[in-house]
C-alpha cells in the first residue's frame, strides 16, 4: 500500500473527516448530475451556483428582501419569547391554572396552524406583519410549554424551605423559580426558533411582495435554478446560524444547573 493511501485511510478513521468526505461526495455527484444528466433548466451545478452568489446579491431587491426576512425573524422571535414567557408563567405558576389551561394550550399546539395561514394574510395584510404574526404563532407555544415544564419540575422542598425562611412571593419567584426555569427556558427558545423559522418562511413562500418569497417565486417561474439555489443556500445559512446561536445559548445556560 502506498503512503498516501495509508494516510487517507488513517484520516478517514476520524468521523469528522469522513463526514466532510460524504458531503464533498454528494456535491460531486450533484455537479456530475447537473453537468451531464439533468436539463439545465431545472438543475444547475454547485460550481455555477457558487460562482453566481454574487449575482444573486446584485439582483435588484434581493439584499433588501434578505434584510426584511431577517428582520421578520428577529421580531417574531423576540415577540415569541415575550408572549411564551408570559403565557408559560401565567399557566405554570398556579397548579389550578395549569390543570385548567395546559390542556387548552396543548390542544392549540397540536392543531396544524398552517391551515389558518390564509387568515393571517387576511388579518395582517401581505406585508411583514402577517409573516411576523404567523412566525409568533409557531414560536411561542414551545417556549410557553417549556416554561410550564420548568416550573413544574422545581422540587417542592425548595419552595417550602424558601417560604419557611420568610421569602415573600417576589423573592420566591426571583431566587427560586426563575433560576430553576432557565435551562428549560433556553431549551424552549431553541424549539421556538425552529418554529419561528418555519412560520416566517411558510408565510413568505405563501405570499410576499418584498421578502424572499417574492424572489423564490420569481426565480422558479423564470426557470432560473442557478439563482434559486443561490438564494435558498443563503437562507439556509441564515437559518443554520440562527439555530446555532440559540443552541449554543442552550448549552451555555443549561450547564450550570447540574450541581
Amino acid at each position, binding site marked *: 500500500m502506498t503512503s498516501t493511501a495509508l494516510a487517507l485511510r488513517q484520516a478517514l478513521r476520524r468521523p469528522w473527516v469522513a463526514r466532510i468526505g460524504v458531503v464533498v461526495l454528494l456535491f460531486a455527484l450533484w455537479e456530475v448530475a447537473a453537468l451531464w444528466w439533468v436539463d439545465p433548466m431545472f438543475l444547475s451545478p454547485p460550481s455555477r451556483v457558487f460562482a453566481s452568489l454574487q449575482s444573486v446579491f446584485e439582483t435588484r431587491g434581493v439584499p433588501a428582501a434578505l434584510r426584511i426576512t431577517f428582520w421578520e425573524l428577529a421580531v417574531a422571535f423576540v415577540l415569541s419569547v415575550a408572549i411564551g414567557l408570559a403565557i408559560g408563567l401565567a399557566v405554570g405558576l398556579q397548579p389550578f391554572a395549569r390543570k*385548567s389551561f395546559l390542556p387548552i394550550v396543548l390542544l392549540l399546539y*397540536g*392543531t*396544524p396552524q398552517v391551515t389558518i395561514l390564509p*387568515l393571517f394574510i387576511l388579518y395582517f395584510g401581505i406585508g411583514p406583519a402577517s409573516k411576523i404574526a404567523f412566525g409568533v404563532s409557531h414560536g411561542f407555544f414551545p417556549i410557553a410549554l417549556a416554561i410550564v415544564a420548568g416550573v413544574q419540575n422545581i422540587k417542592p422542598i425548595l419552595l417550602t424551605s424558601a417560604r419557611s425562611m420568610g421569602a415573600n412571593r417576589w423573592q420566591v419567584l426571583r431566587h427560586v423559580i426563575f433560576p430553576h426555569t432557565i435551562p428549560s427556558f433556553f431549551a424552549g427558545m431553541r424549539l421556538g426558533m425552529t418554529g419561528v*423559522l418555519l412560520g416566517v*418562511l411558510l408565510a413568505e*413562500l405563501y405570499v410576499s411582495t418584498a421578502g424572499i418569497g417574492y424572489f423564490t417565486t420569481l426565480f422558479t417561474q423564470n426557470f432560473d435554478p442557478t439563482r434559486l439555489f443561490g438564494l435558498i443556500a443563503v*437562507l439556509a445559512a441564515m*437559518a443554520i446560524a440562527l439555530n446555532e446561536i440559540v443552541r449554543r445559548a442552550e448549552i451555555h445556560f443549561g450547564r450550570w444547573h447540574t450541581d
Partner: protein
Amino acid sequence: MTPAQRKQEKPLASRAVQAAFLIALVVLWYLATTRWRVSPLLLPNPLAVLRDFWDILTTGEFIGDLRVTLTELAAAFAISATSGVVVGYLISRTQYRIRVFEPLFAGIFSVPIILFLPLYVLFFGLGPASKIALGATISFFPIALNTIAGFGYVDKMLVTAARSMGASDYQLFRYVLLPAAWPVVLTGMRMGFTVALLSIIGSETIASLAGLGHRIVHLAEGMEMARMFAYIVFVVMIALILNTLVSVLEARGRRLQ
C-alpha cells in the same frame, strides 16, 4: 372538606374552567359578528360556519380533496418510513457510521426544509409528486434519527450477554435489539407522520392544484369566508383524528413486540 372530596372536586373545577373558556370564545365570536359589526369578510358568523360545515359533510364535497391529501400523505409516509428505518438501521450497525452520519442528519434536520419547496415544485411540478417528495424528505429525518438512536444505543451488556449465551444473529435481532429499539423507532414514526401531514398541507397551501390546503386557499381567494372557516375546522379535525390515531397505534405497538 375532606381531602378525598377535594381531590374529586379539583378536576371538575378545571373542566368547568376549560368549558367556560371555550364557550366564552364562541360567544365572543358570535357577539363580534352580530353586535359589534365586524365585517363578515374578516370574521363570518359562527352559525353560518356551522351551516357550511354541515353542508360540506352532508354533500360529501370534501371527498375529492381529502382523497388527494390522504393519498399524498400515505405515499410520503410509506417512502420515508421504509427508507428512514432501512437507512437508520444500516447506519446504526457500527459506532463509526453513527459518528459519521448522525451529526450530518441532525444538522440537515435543523434547517427548515420547507425552504426547498420552490425547488421541489421546479423538479416535480405543481401536482401531488412535489408534495409527496417534500413530505417524504421532511419526515425521513426524524424516522432515521430515531432508528439510529434506537438500534445504535442498545445496552452493550445485553448484547454481550445474549452472545455469550449463544444467540444467533437472528435471535440477537429478534429478542434483544428489536425490543430495545422498537419504542424509539415508533416514536420517530409518529413524529415523522406529524411533520409529513404538516408539510403536505403546507405545500398544498403554497403551490398546488388540489387537496385540502388548496381548497382553503381557493376559498380565501374567493372571499367565501364562512365556507373557508368550515373547511379549516374540517382540516383541523382530520388532523386531530389522524394524530390521535397514530398516538394510539404507537401505544399499541409498544405493548406488542
